[in-house]
């Protein structure tokens, strides 16, 4: 019990004064925050507020130009070894799924464990089968991504990220490209993952899901975190005017 609380209190991601420009556009304007091991953080905010860019800097899909990011004790720098080390500890799920269309579902999931973790094929496939069962589509292993529905593709994408046994999962609007009837099958998988204790950062517009799962809500606007707090605080008693305005828009 003691070790668990100790783990929970440990910061797994620490960002200090993070800045990022796209050309002359100042997209992240000084983000300082930290995420604890096992914490579920849902990131809200209007489009263009920098929320996606923020989580993409955490595994260096975007390079930050100022400030520091430390993930699981490793600082993100230009050192390729650090970047590769962090990427194999941080899983990511994309809005557009980004499955590899020329590989089967099984190959999509087993590629990285075999090449990066150097697992033998049999072990990778065993893990893949377990994960496919966990996300509810064990029978689709031999199919190609284009033969699956959007919801199934996104669940494969989650399984693919989990196959690397990451310590942190980043979700970049995982349900925004899905038809309404498929959103829940993906959210169910994410819910189950949250209960298993995974550290999760989720950019999402699913308010109900955020309320239910999030330990903390972060609201981004114009490149800064305008409000941060528990889901309860954030939805019932937002302090900042921009947060109130945003909530009134999405809840109406």
């Amino acid at each position, binding site marked *: 019990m003691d070790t668990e609380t100790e783990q929970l209190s440990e910061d797994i991601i620490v960002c200090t004064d993070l800045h990022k420009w796209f050309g002359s556009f100042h997209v992240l304007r000084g983000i300082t925050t930290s995420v604890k091991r096992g914490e579920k953080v849902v990131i809200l905010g209007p489009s263009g507020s920098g929320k996606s860019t923020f989580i993409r800097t955490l*595994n*260096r*899909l975007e390079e930050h130009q100022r400030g520091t990011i430390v993930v699981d004790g490793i600082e993100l720098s230009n050192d*390729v070894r650090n970047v*590769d*080390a962090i*990427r*194999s500890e*941080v*899983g*990511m799920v*994309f809005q*557009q799924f*980004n*499955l*590899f*269309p*020329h590989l089967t579902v099984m190959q999509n999931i087993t*590629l*990285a464990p075999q*090449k*990066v973790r150097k697992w033998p094929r049999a072990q990778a496939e065993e893990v893949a089968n377990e994960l496919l069962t966990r996300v509810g589509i064990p029978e689709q292993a031999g199919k*190609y*991504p*284009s*033969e699956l529905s959007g919801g199934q593709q996104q669940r494969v*994408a989650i399984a*693919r*990220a989990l196959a*690397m046994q990451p310590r942190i999962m*980043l979700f970049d609007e995982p349900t925004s490209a899905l038809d309404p009837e498929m959103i829940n099958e993906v959210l169910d998988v994410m819910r189950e993952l949250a209960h298993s204790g995974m550290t999760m950062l989720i950019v999402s517009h699913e308010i109900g899901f955020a309320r239910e799962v999030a330990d903390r809500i972060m609201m981004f606007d114009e490149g800064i975190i305008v409000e941060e707090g528990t889901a309860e605080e954030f939805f019932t008693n937002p302090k900042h005017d921009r947060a109130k305005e945003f909530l009134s828009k999405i809840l109406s």
Partner: protein
Amino acid sequence: MSANPETTLSTALPPPILDRGLLGWAHANLFSSRFNAALSILSAALLGAVAWFSLRWVIQDSDWTLIATLSGRLIIGPYNTEQACPGQDCFWRPQVSLLMVTTLLGMAWVAAGGGLTKRIAIGVTAVLAAFSLLPNGLEEMGMDVRLLLVANIPALALGWALARYTPLGTVRWIAILAVCTFAATLLLLGGREGVPGLQPVSVIHWGGLMLNLLLAVAGIALSFPIGIALALGRRSDLPVVKLLCVVFIEVFRGVPLITLLFMSQVLVPLAFPEDFPLNSLYRAAIVITLFSAAYMAENIRGGLQALHRGQTEAAQSLGLPNWQITLFITLPQAIRNVIPAIVGQFIALFKDTTLVYIIGMQDIVTYSRAFIQGNPEFIPSALELFIFLGLVFWIFTYSMSYISRQIEQNLGVGRR
């Protein structure tokens, strides 16, 4: 429940009569409007006239004996003439090379598990064996030549058995053996001083379809990987590598192949010592390969650019290093997307091998033209000969495009 009882969920109605069957097809494709109907009738009349006159010429007026007369000469050119191979019969050397090729085809048949490869293997072997039934050509076609042609059938069977009953039946082994076969063919055709029966034959006597195929196979096999390397180099972050690749591609794309071939024969010997080991055949092969590789690079670069950025990002997020992302994610998809352009380049390369006439080599077209010029009594048959040559090239290029479509289908290009 339904307001309109005829359209309940369970009744699927057949389409209107005009959309079905032959009548529907003709209506949709030939007579969909007055203008289209007029065009259809006009085209049919034109086609009919062309077919009538062509057929009449083929049946009544044409004389195809020249092709039978030339027969083997079209395939090997002047290779086994007295001048090329004095005092010896050299015909068996290209024939033995062919036997190696059919053996490989037999192995590929097993490795591919039948299908298209099986049909190609059987088809090629059957055609080769059928050549043994041809009447005599310019010279007596000896029993040895005929037997070696028929031997392609047991060679195919041998390859099949080798792949079926030994560990050699894998794609990797077949690829290795294919490279060995190509090298062995070059050694066999070139011969070696002092080895009995393997009198050296200078490359200027290599000719006919054999020369076209040697250049095309080498060019295709080498320009593909070189083109990939150039395409990747052109997208490299290293400025020097990028610059070198851009310069190479633009120079080789910007200069006509004939000019490059000519320069390779005239300028390279000036720049290198006289005993520089590259003979004219190798120089031609290198020029054709590099020329084709420059186009190949641009095709593949196009395929890489068409890929969605999310593919790379997903692979990066899994921790794959850059070279593995290229090898397993981007390159396979890029190549699949540009298979038609790649095969188009292969076809162009095959046809461009006829340009070696500029450096005095006697490929199938040059040899035929030279033969007619040297034997004026055959001038009336020139038309038939060149129609036949066109047909030969068409068979090869159409096979290439047919194979590429089968590959696309097997890979599910366009569907996934």
